[in-house]
């Protein structure tokens, strides 16, 4: 190819312009349909955005696999050391009688539930797989209340986009989108394999998001905040542990 012909220049220019405007249209549509994750910036943003967008299109209403009782792991592995914080130990000593789960933010009626309040909701059980980003996994039966029931009780505003979750553990917080927050398998769990949720598994309350990796199932749950913008929440919850992807459906 010794020279660039005028025809090539024109077709190339037109193709570039079409590609650029195509991308702009795609970006606007993706934003409108909630296909852009909060951590879309940075050098790994393109990969995160492609994964999130592709999976939101494919999996918006799909159900995590559930298993027969015979596949429940004999020894579910509890990652990390049990929480040793003073305020947690005090609550534990009192049998978690003072434990509260607060639901606030963009809701009509902010509410606060005790563990006894939560047990009054119709319970839901599911036998699902929990996979850690490290590579190990186990199957357990989780028991609790669908997160959507708790949100319904508080009346989330229709323009809500995320639910942020806070833990008793210092500086531990996270967030999920409404597709996962309203998903029927997303539970606020208080039981595992027929018993109370042990400390190692995040007892007394743990969020359970079975369509994402284990790190999105926040332990020692104390507060849920509904919002349309994670940046409004004081701390940047769009990337709570910056080394990991916000969306962990992989």
């Amino acid at each position: 190819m010794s020279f660039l012909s005028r025809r090539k220049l024109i077709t190339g220019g037109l193709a570039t312009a079409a590609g650029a405007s195509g991308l702009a249209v795609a970006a606007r549509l993706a934003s409108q349909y909630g296909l852009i994750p909060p951590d879309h910036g940075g050098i790994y943003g393109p990969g995160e955005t492609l994964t999130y967008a592709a999976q939101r299109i494919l999996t918006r209403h799909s159900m995590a696999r559930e298993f027969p009782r015979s596949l429940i792991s004999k020894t579910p592995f509890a990652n990390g050391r049990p929480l040793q914080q003073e305020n947690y130990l005090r609550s534990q000593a009192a049998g978690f009688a003072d434990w509260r789960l607060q639901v606030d933010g963009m809701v009509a009626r902010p509410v606060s539930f005790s563990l006894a309040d939560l047990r009054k909701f119709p319970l839901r059980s599911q036998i699902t797989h929990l996979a850690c980003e490290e590579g190990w996994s186990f199957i357990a039966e989780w028991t609790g209340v669908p997160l959507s029931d708790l949100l319904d009780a508080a009346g989330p505003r229709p323009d809500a986009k995320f639910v942020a979750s806070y833990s008793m553990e210092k500086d531990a917080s996270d967030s999920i989108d409404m597709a996962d927050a309203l998903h029927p398998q997303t539970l606020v769990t208080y039981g595992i394999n027929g018993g109370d949720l042990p400390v190692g598994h995040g007892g007394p309350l743990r969020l359970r998001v079975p369509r994402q990796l284990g790190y999105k199932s926040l332990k020692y749950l104390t507060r849920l905040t509904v919002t349309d913008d994670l940046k409004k929440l004081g701390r940047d919850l769009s990337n709570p542990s910056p080394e990991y992807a916000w969306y962990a459906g992989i």
Partner: protein
Amino acid sequence: MAISAVAPATTTGPRHTAVVRVTHWVTALCFLALLVTGVEIVISHPRFYWGETGNIHTQALFQIPIPASRHSVPTGYGFVLPDQNGWSRHLHFQAAWGVVLTGLLYFVYGLTTRHFAGNRVPRGVGLGRDLVAHLRFRRPGPADAWSYNPVQRMTYLLVIFVLFPLMIWTGLAMSPAFVSAFPAAVSVFGGQQSARTIHFFLTIVLFGFLLVHVGMVWLAGFRYRMRAMVTGRAASIQEHS
């Protein structure tokens, strides 16, 4: 000297088209990124299992005798390696998208041009003879500079149509969200941990291919072959002999 079963069809025009060259190097770059980050991710839990589940309380299928980057894994070593999972996971999935998108471009190109039919599907006789020539490390002749022999064609077919798709598939089979929409994608392997183990073995096979591929390029004349894959120009027969 092994005589190729396929005579050089043409010796004019580029040896490799621009699409083939670009997709080759983008894939090569992504594969290296996937390899390095994949090793890094494995270090956080160098145990492998079969079936749906596996953790340190269950029997491992096998364990790689290396130290781990997490305290929770008993490795027998008295120390824990630095945890590099953060950037490794980000780069792994971004590079995986690179392979998938480049692969799609390559498939469309291969199907709409004569690339698959002309350069990939084995033609003619001589598979056995070429295999023997390969195993004896015979240097390829000038005719091979313009075409592929049946052993090469079979190998490339295997890598492009079997190993890479299986790699992507077993990777997706580990995704809790993807398998919620397509549960059969993981159940055919017998579970999420089986998919992880197969993903690991496929890595070894593809790494083996990389070593042999680079070794063969070296034997065949590194400069000529690299030039052909970078600029598209191949050595003329006179130049080569």
